[in-house]
């Protein structure tokens, strides 16, 4: 372990040099901050390994080993960083070389080393530093509600739903439409879709908000462009078996059946399976009537309730983090208009990141949506990083 510490001490000045000599642009100072965080993590690693007992006898050793294992990629990145820096220094020394060919070679080499160093610091290392999100593995519950625009909004809702089902299919998530209400004049009034699979929530959560469409409705003879909206709410899906029971106590949930049933029992054979749950402390209510059995409706309603409560918990945690430090992490305001689908101009714009894709059909029918999601996830990762840096 001594050798590690000596090596670490030796390269420290390099970091300082890097920080001071290049700290001209804001991105350089950001890079310096990133490297300071990495240094801290490497120090922690060093401490951990020095605390390991020789014979691995203590039970704390297991935990330390696990932590060391987890931070191995950080060590690898650090090693690569120091190696690249060293090579850079060596090539810089060759700038003074008497041989012209050698000088040219050194210049070329220096350029390529700088490029790798930059990408290491600005993208690879940050991705390792960002703490894994607790919601990484969660599935999602997608709720679509038609907004302004009458039937046209319902028609657009059906388009959006197809878009999400297609995305889920290509990401190999499993979907099931929990409930769906058709609109008399075509389209879908509202729908609830379960999207099961690793990363479904992490990807889809950025879809929460108001989606706006501008197009000439198929039903509009005059050819006038209408604007209508659909509200999308994406909730984390919590399986019954997850440790979600802490989310609520059964005593806090009022379960009601929706209709009077007269004498009931053998006297009546009408299907009356609608169920409504009320979570008394939060006032959240969930109604479910799409299944033919009360038991199934109740289960589904509980799934939705768990999702809502989980969502509440997540936003509460974000708010708390925000309160404790000046966080830049944005919470999704669900009434916020997040995206516009403009048919006449064949373009889709995401207003949060100011990204426009000039190919509407690729968003609705191809990979365009994934591009938006990637950009939004990247944007989010950056703000988390910003947040982390400002907390240092």
């Amino acid at each position, binding site marked *: 372990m001594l050798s590690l510490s000596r090596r670490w001490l030796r390269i420290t000045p390099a970091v300082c040099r890097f920080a001071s000599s290049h700290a001209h642009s804001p991105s350089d100072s950001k890079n310096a901050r990133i490297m300071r965080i990495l240094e801290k993590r490497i120090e922690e690693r060093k401490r951990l390994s020095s605390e390991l007992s020789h014979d691995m006898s203590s039970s704390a050793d297991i935990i330390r080993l696990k932590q060391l294992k987890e931070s191995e990629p950080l060590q690898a990145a650090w090693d690569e960083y120091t190696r690249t820096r060293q090579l850079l220094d060596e090539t810089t020394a060759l700038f003074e070389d008497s041989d012209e060919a050698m000088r040219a070679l050194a210049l070329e080499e220096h350029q390529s080393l700088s490029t790798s160093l930059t990408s290491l610091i600005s993208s690879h290392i940050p991705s390792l530093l960002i703490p894994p999100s607790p919601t990484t593995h969660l599935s999602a519950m997608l709720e679509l509600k038609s907004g302004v625009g009458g039937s046209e909004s319902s028609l657009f809702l059906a388009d959006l739903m197809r878009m999400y089902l297609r995305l889920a299919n290509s990401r190999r998530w499993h979907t099931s439409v929990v409930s769906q*209400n*058709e609109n*008399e004049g075509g389209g879908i009034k509202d729908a609830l879709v379960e999207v099961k699979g690793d990363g479904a929530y992490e990807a889809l959560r950025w879809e929460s908000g108001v989606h706006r469409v501008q197009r000439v409705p198929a039903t509009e003879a005059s050819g006038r462009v209408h604007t209508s909206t659909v509200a999308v709410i994406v909730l984390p899906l919590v399986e019954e078996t997850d440790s979600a029971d802490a989310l609520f106590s059964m005593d806090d949930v009022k*379960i009601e*059946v929706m209709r*009077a*049933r007269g*004498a*009931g*029992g*053998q*006297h*009546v*054979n*009408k*299907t*009356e*399976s609608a169920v409504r749950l009320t979570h008394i402390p939060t006032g959240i209510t969930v109604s479910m*009537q*799409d*299944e*033919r*059995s*009360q*038991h*199934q409706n109740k289960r589904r309603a509980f799934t939705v309730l768990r999702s809502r409560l989980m969502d509440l918990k997540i936003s509460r945690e974000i708010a708390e983090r925000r309160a404790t430090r000046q966080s830049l992490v944005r919470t999704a305001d669900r009434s916020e208009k997040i995206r516009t689908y403009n048919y006449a101009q064949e373009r889709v714009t995401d207003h949060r990141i100011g990204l426009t894709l000039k190919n509407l059909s690729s968003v609705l029918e191809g990979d365009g949506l994934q591009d938006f999601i990637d950009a939004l996830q990247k944007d989010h990762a950056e703000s988390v990083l910003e947040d982390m840096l400002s907390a240092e």
Partner: protein
Amino acid sequence: MASKLLSILATSLGPTQARLELKWMQQQARHPAQLTEMVTRRSRGEPLQYILGSQPFGPLNLLTRPPVLIPRPETEHWVIKLADRTSASPTSPKSLLDLGTGSGCIPLLLCHLLPQGSLRTHGVDISPQALDLAKENAAVCGIPPSSPGSCARNTRNTFTATLGNFLDPMFSEDATIDPPYDIITCNPPYIPWHEYLKLPRSVTAYEDPKALFGGPTGLDFYHAIAHLVRQTNFIRPGAVVALEVGHNQAQDVERIMRVHAHVRDTEIWPDPWGKQRTVLAHL
């Protein structure tokens, strides 16, 4: 097309129910003509469950076929609650008798919900059609019959069913009945004569009157059950008798169990609609 079918259904069911039922029929119909036929049958008053041929019951999906009584949500509710309250394990397996088993819904759901190898159930019914359906349902749910030679331990929960008449005073002598039992369940016919006349057509025109009629007062079968419970060695000490009752019969049935079956510990469970629905007698 769909809107025409919807309006046909809505006249008899109201708009909300019509929309739901049409959706369920659409999910099942293989072609438009079949959907139209389903809607026509429904608008004439045939129960949805017979048209679709099945009814979910807890996590099970049971077959339904006229004239066998369609499992009711009230029954589903108390059976799930009974499963929650029953402690059975493969090391102390329990034996259950279901009187008037109909579709087999009560014992089959209990078999499904309780730990495997902890429950052996037997259903009795006077109707051969009910018996056939109950056995088919057991097969559909993957619940096997118990191996003959009752001493053998089963690794699974089991269901068997035989023809029988539990109003018969000699019922307990029947060779297929194997007392003592730890649990008796029964949803007996409980509709009294005067209420039978006021039942909706979807009940009287399609479901077996023998499954509904409980004699002049609706209480005949409870007296027969009290008689059985009182017989020596018919049920084990510590056993429980769970009886579904009509909307205003809980007090009467509780009294019958106390006075005629000499049970001191009784309990009444309400259904989700607030009606007193199940009388429990603890022995």
